[in-house]
C-alpha cells in the first residue's frame, strides 16, 4: 500500500456508485508538491477523517474536493460528475465550512444564517426553524447580538449551525472544532453521527480527536 492512501477500515461494500470518487489527486502550493497522489471513495453514510501535520495540505485537499483549488493532477467526481463542471443542484449538495467562519460582523447570527441560505438560493426560509438550529448550536440568547460581540467559540457555533439547516449530503469541514468547548465538541460528534445515519457523507480535518464517531476512515497525509 502506498503512503497517502486511505486505509479502508471496515468499509462496507456498497451496491451503488460511491458518492465521491477521488483519483490520483495531487496538489501543489508555491511550486512544491504537498502530498502524494491520493485515491479514495466515499459512500453514503461514511466519514473520512483527514489527518496530517501542519502544512501537509489538509486544507488544500479539502478545498480541492470542493472545487475551490485547482489540483495539480487527478480528478474528483461527485455522483459521477466532475466537481468543477457539475450543475447547481449537485453543487448545493455540498456544504463547505472552512477555517474562516464566513460571518458578517455587523449582522446577528440569525441574519447571518438567513443570508447564508439566501445566497444558496434556498427559498421560503422558516425563521422558527433557523432559531431552533441556533438554539441547538448553543446560541440561545445570542441570536440577536451582532456577531462582532460574540466570542470565537460562539462564532464557530454560528457557522456550524448551517449544518442543521442544510440539505447538503456532503459536508466538508475544515477544523470544525476550533475554539469549541467540550460540550460543543460532543454536540458536533452527535451531529456528524446523525448525518451519517441519515445517509450523508462527511470529510473532516481536526487536530483534536473527536470521540464517539462511528464508521470513521482515516486518510493520513503524513
Amino acid at each position, binding site marked *: 500500500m502506498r503512503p497517502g492512501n486511505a486505509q479502508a477500515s471496515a468499509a462496507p461494500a456498497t451496491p451503488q456508485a460511491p458518492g465521491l470518487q477521488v483519483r490520483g489527486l495531487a496538489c501543489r502550493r508555491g511550486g512544491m508538491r504537498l502530498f502524494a497522489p491520493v485515491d479514495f471513495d466515499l459512500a453514503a453514510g461514511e466519514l473520512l477523517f483527514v489527518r496530517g501535520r501542519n502544512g501537509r495540505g489538509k486544507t488544500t485537499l479539502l*478545498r480541492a474536493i*470542493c*472545487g*475551490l*483549488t*485547482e489540483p495539480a493532477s487527478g480528478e474528483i467526481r461527485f455522483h459521477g460528475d466532475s466537481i468543477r463542471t457539475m450543475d*447547481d443542484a449537485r*453543487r*448545493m449538495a*455540498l456544504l*463547505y465550512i*472552512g*477555517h*474562516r*467562519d*464566513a*460571518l*458578517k*460582523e*455587523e*449582522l446577528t447570527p440569525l441574519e447571518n444564517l438567513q*443570508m*447564508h441560505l*439566501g*445566497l*444558496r*438560493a434556498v*427559498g421560503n426560509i422558516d425563521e422558527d426553524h433557523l432559531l431552533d438550529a441556533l438554539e441547538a448550536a448553543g446560541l440561545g440568547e445570542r441570536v440577536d447580538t451582532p456577531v462582532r460581540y460574540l466570542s470565537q467559540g460562539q462564532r464557530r457555533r454560528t457557522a456550524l449551525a448551517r449544518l442543521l439547516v442544510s440539505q447538503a449530503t456532503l459536508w466538508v469541514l475544515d477544523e470544525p472544532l476550533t475554539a469549541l468547548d467540550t460540550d460543543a465538541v460532543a454536540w458536533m460528534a452527535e451531529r456528524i453521527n446523525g448525518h451519517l445515519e441519515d445517509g450523508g457523507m462527511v470529510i473532516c480535518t481536526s487536530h483534536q480527536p473527536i470521540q464517539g464517531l462511528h464508521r470513521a476512515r482515516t486518510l493520513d497525509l503524513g
Partner: protein
Amino acid sequence: MGRSLWTLLKRDITLLVLRRQDVMTIIAFFLIVTTLLPLSVGPEPETLRALAPGGVWIAAALASLISLDRLFADDWRDGTLEQLALGPAPLALVALTKITAHWLALGLPLVLLSPLMGYALGLQGMALLILPLSLALGTPVLSLLGATGAALTLGVRAGGALMALLILPLYVPVLILGSGAVSEAMHAAGAGPHLSLLGALLALALPLAPLAVAGALRIALD
C-alpha cells in the same frame, strides 16, 4: 440563482448602510479633493471654470479608486467569498452584483452631488446638466475597471497603491471622455459624441469586466 444574486445585492447594500461612516468618508473625500482645486490654483473664476470638469472628474476617479479597494477584501478575509464561489450563481454575476451594489451606494451619491461641486467651481447652464450625466455613464465604467484591479490585488501587500498603478492608466479614456463632454457643453458645443463614446465604453466594460473579475477572484481563492 436569481434569488441568490438578489440576496447578495440586498446584503451588500445593507452592509454599506450599516457601515455608513465608510460611505460618508468616501463622499467627504470627493468633496474635499474638489475643494482643493480652488485652494491650489487660486480663486480666479475663469481659471476655475476651465479646470472644473477635469477637477470634478479626477476627484470622482480617485474616490472610486479608494472605495473599490475594499470591494472584495472583506468577503475574502472572512471566508464569504469561498461560500459565494461555491454558491449557485456564476462568479462573474456575483462580481457584477457586488459592483452594482457598490455603485448604487457610492457612485450614485457622487453623481448626485456633482452639480453642487460644479456650480461651486463656476460651471453654468448646460455644463451643470452634462456633468452628472457624464458621471452617471462614466463612474460605472470606473467601478467595473476598478473592481478588476481590486480582485487582482486581493491579499497583496500594499494592495491599494499597486491597484492605483494597475488601474489608473485604464481610467484614462473615461476621464478624457467624461471631462471632455463637460468642456464641450461649456463651449456651447454638443457633448453628444463624448457621451455616446462613454456609453460605448460602458457597453464594452459591462460584459467583459465581470469575466476578468471572476478570473482574478478564482486566482485569489486558489
